[in-house]
Every structure is written in structure tokens, then in C-alpha cells.
């Protein structure tokens, strides 16, 4: 086996993708937990943690660029490195959406919830599951698992549509709920966007595993 140092750094970068994915998953869970339990302190921590995610994304990018510049990777190595660059960007954007949800919690203050939250936490669980599956498919180079993870985006979209419909009804019945209902719509939209970004990660996994660029997030008829 030659190119040991290259191989080691490539594996280390993959490890960092896993770690960054875990941090993003925690941010999503934390933000939605803070929303459900009205915990502005937790929301604050999630928002702050996003700076760390942003910094780690740049570090990951720098290390990828260093390998591209110095090692001239080819074939599957090239696919993995360009995939990591894309995945790092997608993870960073997911982190931004999670922080956005956390900031809504801070903005909403201690105002009581207009409705018990059921579907938004379900969306969050689904999104984090998708993300975990996508990242583990990346590590295992498992295109089939990536396609399965991406397919769950439809469930997230359906929940998002349901949340929208429900909030519309509440707003029509009682216009005083409009401000908070709008915030909740933003939260739902943020989660829906995260799921879309997970499908991007899944596309990269398929590219790494099979060398083909495949659209795993076809446009659909609903909201979002």
C-alpha cells in the first residue's frame, strides 16, 4: 500500500464529516427541543454552537483544498474529496437553519404556544434520522441506503404541508395568533429545507459510490 499519508488524511476528513454531521444533528434536535419546551437558554446555546459549525466547515474545506492541491487525487479519491466539499457546505447550511429555529425561540420569548407542538418535533426527528442515515451511507459508500434516506424527504414535505394547513386555520380563526403562527411556519420551513439539504448529501453519496450525478429531490406539487 502506497500513499499512506494521503490515505490517513482522507480518512481523517471523513471522520470530521461524521463529527460535523453529528454536531448538526444535535443542533437540530436542540433547537426544536428548545422550541417545544420554551427554553431560551438552550436556544442561545444552539445559536452559539453554530459559530463552531461554521468554523469547522471552513477547516474541513481548507484541508480538502490542501489535499487537492498537493496530492492530485484521481477517480474515487477525487469523487470523495469533491463530495466532502459539497457535504461540508450542506452541513453548514443545515446548521444555519437550526440556528434560525433557535433564534425564533428567543424571539418568541415566554409567550404561550398557540397549539401543542406535535408535527414539528416529528419533522425534526425525521430530519435527524435522514441525516444520520445519509452520513453513515457516505462512510459505507452505500448508494442504496443514500437513496432510501433521500426518499424520506417526502414524509418531511408532507408534515410541512400539514403544519402549514393547520397554522393557516388557526390564523383564520384568530388573527391574534398570526405572529407566532408565522414563526412556527418559519421553523417548519427551516426543517423542510434541512431535509432538502440532506438529499443533497445523499446525491453526493451516490456520486462517490457509483460515479453518477443523480437528482434525488425531484420537484413536487405541494408547498415548500
Amino acid at each position, binding site marked *: *500500500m*502506497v500513499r499512506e499519508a*494521503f490515505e490517513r488524511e482522507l480518512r481523517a476528513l471523513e471522520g470530521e464529516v461524521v463529527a460535523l454531521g453529528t454536531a448538526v444533528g444535535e443542533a437540530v434536535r436542540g433547537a426544536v427541543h428548545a422550541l417545544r419546551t420554551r427554553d431560551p437558554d438552550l436556544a442561545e446555546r444552539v445559536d452559539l454552537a453554530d459559530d463552531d459549525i461554521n468554523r469547522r466547515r471552513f477547516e474541513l474545506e481548507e484541508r480538502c483544498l490542501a489535499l487537492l492541491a498537493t496530492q492530485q487525487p*484521481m*477517480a474515487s*479519491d477525487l469523487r470523495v474529496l469533491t463530495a466532502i466539499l459539497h457535504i461540508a457546505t450542506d452541513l453548514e447550511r443545515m446548521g444555519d437553519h437550526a440556528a434560525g429555529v433557535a433564534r425564533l425561540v428567543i424571539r418568541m420569548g415566554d409567550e404561550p404556544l398557540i397549539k401543542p407542538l406535535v408535527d414539528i418535533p416529528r419533522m425534526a426527528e425525521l430530519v435527524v434520522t435522514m441525516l444520520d442515515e445519509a452520513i453513515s451511507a457516505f462512510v459505507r459508500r452505500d448508494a442504496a441506503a443514500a437513496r432510501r434516506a433521500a426518499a424520506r424527504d417526502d414524509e418531511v414535505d408532507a408534515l410541512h404541508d400539514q403544519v402549514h394547513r393547520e397554522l393557516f386555520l388557526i390564523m383564520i380563526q384568530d388573527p391574534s395568533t398570526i405572529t407566532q403562527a408565522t414563526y412556527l411556519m418559519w421553523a417548519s420551513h427551516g426543517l423542510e429545507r434541512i431535509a432538502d439539504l440532506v438529499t443533497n448529501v445523499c446525491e453526493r453519496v451516490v456520486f462517490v459510490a457509483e460515479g453518477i450525478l443523480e437528482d434525488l429531490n425531484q420537484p413536487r406539487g405541494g408547498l415548500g
Partner: protein
Amino acid sequence: MSEHVAPPVLSTRKFSLWYGSHQAVIEVDLDIAERQITAIIGPSGCGKSTLIRAFNRLNDLIPGVRTAGEILFRGEGIYRRGVDPVAVRRHIGMVFQKPNPFPKTVFENVAFGLRINGFQGNLKDRVAQALVQAALWDEVKNDLHRKTGYDLSGGQQQRLCIARALAVEPEVLLMDEPCSALDPIATAKIEDLIRDLARSVTVAIVTHNMQQAARVSDWTAFMLLGELVEFGPTREVFTRPKDSRTEAYITGRFG
């Protein structure tokens, strides 16, 4: 880089070559497309240089060489009985690893092939044209009869050898590691030149510099232990090779 399929100028059909009892090339089927650049890559001893030398019968003089199968130039077998290897080489020129200018003036270096072929046209024009084509004209136009090939830098010498090969207007230019003795800047100039040349000449290049193959060629052939393992558009071969041996070689995980 263009990837459309032009009709092949050179084709091998189950071509094999032996040095004594050692088989260096094993039943290779390869098409070299017209006015495109085909790179042949592979580790040392894979048969790539042997194959490219077979394209203009340079192996003929090596004792104990035997071939089987065919190499077709525009459909005609170049190893068939009665084919003159000198005539083959007029159509299919070769540039070697180390620049090999003659100890003559720049002009005579380029005119050499024309003179031995009994060229009847305007020698001065043809020499100038070949030097322009080889991107050397501006650097030597005032010293054509004053400087010898040896007075030029390594990169200039290699371009001089390319001009010498181009002067007889070959249809195919074979290049065997043309940049391995050159520095990066001279290499970049030759690579630019190769791309320019491919507008009028078919180029086949042997290189062990994979980045060079990736940069300059339209098609890449990967050889291993005398066999052609994979052949396809360069972009495909370097981003998603089909054969695991190609993958192992181009990612540097060989051995």
C-alpha cells in the same frame, strides 16, 4: 476536450509483440481517433512504449522481436508483407523521450527528413512552417543557420524535434514520454503545443505522468502487464474508471 468519435486512423487488432520468449504486448485492440489525442498510460514495463513504437515499426530492428495480430493505418496493415517501414514512418512520425537534435543547424535539423525524402518543394517555406507549427519559430527565426540544435534549451530542443517530425507532414505523431526530460514550464509549452497540433495531426502520447495524460488527452488507454485494461474518454477514465486495476493505478494505490 472533444469526445466525439472520429473514425480511427490507427487501429490494433489483437496485436501482440514478443521480445524473444517474453510477451510484452498481449492481444491489444485499440483505435486511435483522427485528430484527437490518445494517451497511453501504465506502470513501467506495461508495454506502453513497446506498443507506441510498434505503431511505426521501430521495434523491427530489435533482434528477437515477433508480432502477431495487426496494426492498421487507414485500414492497411503496416506489418503486412511488402510494406516499407520507411514509408510507414513518413506518415507516422515519432518524438522521443530525450530531445535528440542532430549536430547541425536549426534549419538543417528540420530540413533533414525533407532532404532524405527527396522533397521537391520550397524547403525554406516548409521548414519555417514546421517551426511555426512547433511553436519555436519566434525563438529561432534569426538564428536558423547560426545556431545548432545543441545551442537550444531542452524545451526548445524538444520542440525542434517536433518540428523535424512535422516537416514531412505526417498524419500521426507518436510521442514517447516527450516531457520527461523537461522542466514544468517547458512541459507546459509542449502540452499547449500538443493541443494545438491535434487540430491538424492525430497524436498518440505515452506518458507515466498521469496528470499530463489527464490534461492533454481526449482518450486514455491504461495498460498493465502487456494488456489493455481500460480505454475510454479521458474525463471518464480519470473520474470514474470502470476497472478496479485502473482505479488502483490512477489513485496511486498500486503495489
